């Protein structure tokens, strides 16, 4: 390893530059970290800094980054499920329509069925919980249904979910008759974010500190476990550096979202209601981590665990790598595929909660073309359409990359058709670049 990093006796600047990627690769190998993920982070850094320069410094502000985090949430949540779908050599084109269908059903439930049908009355504290449970159960059921037809009906997932795209959207129009349902339950709305739908200063710090402790402990536990078996382990400096990076990133993110205060009129309103005297500079209430972002982080952790640390995930990756081998090794491939679609449906339910709560409404166009954003996020995040390859953190970063491009262009007043053109080109270029890197490495 060290030979690759040590430069030859008298290298020119050009030689040094050319060696940089190799040296970086060797360094990443020594530290045992995912080079693909580093590349994605680097791409994101370039996009952020680029937009910050182009917009004259308005991109890298606490306000914009907070908004970016909330706007990325819904797509990121579904992208974690799409990774497993694509890894298993399938596709789900129905996620946008499923989201719309689930969101609409939840809106009807919380504004009519639960308050009137169950006689709870509007604003009852149980309504939001019942609605959330309904959304998750419905999502799981719809996903499992599609998965069942795909796995046991031997119909390609492209066809089944293309049918699903039409069916679920059609159902919305059939029972909504083009109507928008608004407003939604006041507690439910908080799940969509906003100043009140956030953790606040101390809650955010608590989450950040707990996360840091968990990550750092995890790094050292893994080290100890591998050392116990006498396996090769990361050099200690690499573990320490990774731990420090994790702490800086997590706590830095908390610091950023805490640096975004509530809007002035809302803060004044809050002060008035609670009898707080507004100080001369205005009352500053840090917003903190928005609930949709918290949900996204939770989903990403659970999905990563499922994908990498559980039999289910291992089997899904095996199916993607070699379906015949998976079948011959006794894996119940049909059941695995059905469950993958069940998980995807469940996550469409989670995103439906976030999106309707954020909009404070259900509209007939809810989730339209979301499937394209979700697939793009997974693919930009390194998921291969050949199957067997893809990571959950990659997909979440992919969603952030997409949203960063969109919101950066909005700030530069780029019109919507041009945004589509840019995102389309980036999508194809990202996959092309990835394929090129992969060819070179083998």
């Amino acid at each position, binding site marked *: 390893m060290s030979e690759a990093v040590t430069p030859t006796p008298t290298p020119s600047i050009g030689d040094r530059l050319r060696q940089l990627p190799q040296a970086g690769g060797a360094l990443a190998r020594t530290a045992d970290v995912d080079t693909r993920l580093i590349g994605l982070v680097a791409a994101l850094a370039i996009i952020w800094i680029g937009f910050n320069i182009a917009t004259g410094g308005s991109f890298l502000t606490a306000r914009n980054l907070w908004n970016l985090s909330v706007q990325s949430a819904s797509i990121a949540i579904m992208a974690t499920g799409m990774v497993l779908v694509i890894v298993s050599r399938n596709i789900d084109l129905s996620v946008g329509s499923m989201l719309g269908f689930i969101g609409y059903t939840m809106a009807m439930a919380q504004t009519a069925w639960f308050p009137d049908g169950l006689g709870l009355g509007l604003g009852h504290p149980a309504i939001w919980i019942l609605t959330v449970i309904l959304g998750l159960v419905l999502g799981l059921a719809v996903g499992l249904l599609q998965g069942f037809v795909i796995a046991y009906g031997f119909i390609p997932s492209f066809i089944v979910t293309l049918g699903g795209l039409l069916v679920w959207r059609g159902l919305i129009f059939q029972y909504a008759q083009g109507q928008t349902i608004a407003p939604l339950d006041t507690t439910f709305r908080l799940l969509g974010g906003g100043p009140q739908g956030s953790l606040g200063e101390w809650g955010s710090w608590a989450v950040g500190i707990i996360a840091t402790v968990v990550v750092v402990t995890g790094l050292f536990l893994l080290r100890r*476990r*591998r050392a*116990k*078996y006498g*396996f090769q382990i990361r050099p200690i400096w690499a573990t320490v550096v990774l731990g420090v990076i994790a702490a800086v990133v997590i706590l830095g993110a908390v610091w950023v979202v805490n640096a975004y205060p509530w809007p002035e009129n809302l803060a004044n309103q809050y002060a008035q209601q609670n009898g707080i005297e507004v100080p001369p500079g205005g009352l500053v209430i840090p917003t903190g981590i928005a609930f949709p972002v918290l949900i996204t982080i939770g989903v990403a952790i659970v999905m990563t*665990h499922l994908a*990498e*640390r*559980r*039999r289910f995930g*291992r*089997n899904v*990756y*095996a199916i*993607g*790598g*070699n379906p*015949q*081998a*998976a*079948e*011959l*090794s*006794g*894996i119940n491939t049909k059941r695995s595929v059905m469950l993958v679609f069940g998980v995807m449906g469940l996550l469409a339910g989670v995103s439906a909660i976030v999106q309707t709560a954020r909009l404070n409404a259900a509209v007939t166009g809810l989730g339209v073309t979301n499937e394209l954003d979700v697939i793009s996020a997974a693919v930009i995040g390194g998921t291969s359409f050949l*199957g*067997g*390859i893809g990571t959950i953190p990659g997909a979440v970063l992919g969603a952030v990359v997409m949203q960063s491009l969109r919101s950066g262009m909005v700030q530069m007043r780029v019109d919507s058709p041009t945004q589509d053109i840019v995102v389309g080109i980036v999508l194809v270029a990202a996959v092309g670049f990835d394929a090129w890197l992969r060819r070179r490495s*083998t």
Partner: protein
Amino acid sequence: MTAVPDSAERPAPPLSPEGYLVEMRDISVSFGGVHAVNEVSINLRPGEVLGLVGGNGAGKSTLMKVLSGAQIPDSGDILIGGQVATIHNPRDARSYGIECIYQTLALADNLDASANVFLGRELVQRTGVLDDAAMEDATRRLMKRLNPRFQNFRSAVESLSGGQRQSVAIARAIQFNATILIMDEPTAALGPAETAQVRDLIRQLKTEGLGIFLISHDIHDVFDLADRISVMYHGRIVDTLDKDKVTTDEVLGMIILGKKPGEVTREELDAFRIAG
């Protein structure tokens, strides 16, 4: 090479009264009117290598797929230790101690060696979380014998050489104390050194009491390793003979003409010699 780990603790497999580990009786498989396997009967003793030879499409692989649960026969019985076994899928076959090393190796190319060795039988901790460290440890111990130079425990198996991939496939088959091993063309993709290594391994597994079905195109492999040789021709068994009582020419004649040595006419033999 030393003994397979845990081989001392391997329980003696049940045998039929005649001493057979496995008996396949009157197995037939047809694909759309073509008899791929036609009323074939075959048996295997512990510690025996049975060479299964024949031309392309003779039915060797289909017959073995029936035993490994990858192909359900139209008719016929499989007896394991004298008892009728119901084998409908690879999982059933494994529960009877039957392991198969496919010619294609059936590896998930995107996963590493230990994930492949434990594919479908992953070790988990009490919490249900995969015990990757324990799986890697077991794989390392197994590989130390099978292929001591093997070091790439954390790379996807697609980046490994043919011999290394073959050792991963073999490791998977013997990790779970199989009693019956099916090897489909185990040396076809290997270089001379790796072939020699696989041959050593087969001899060793044999001494440990495993019964091995060896499918091979390589007549030298078969004569080197097998105790008995079964020749298949157009879905039927031409004959099963002790290796010591047959010559390579006779076996080749059976493969090509589909007749027992005594049944071959002078003219056929001459034509065969001229063609050969």
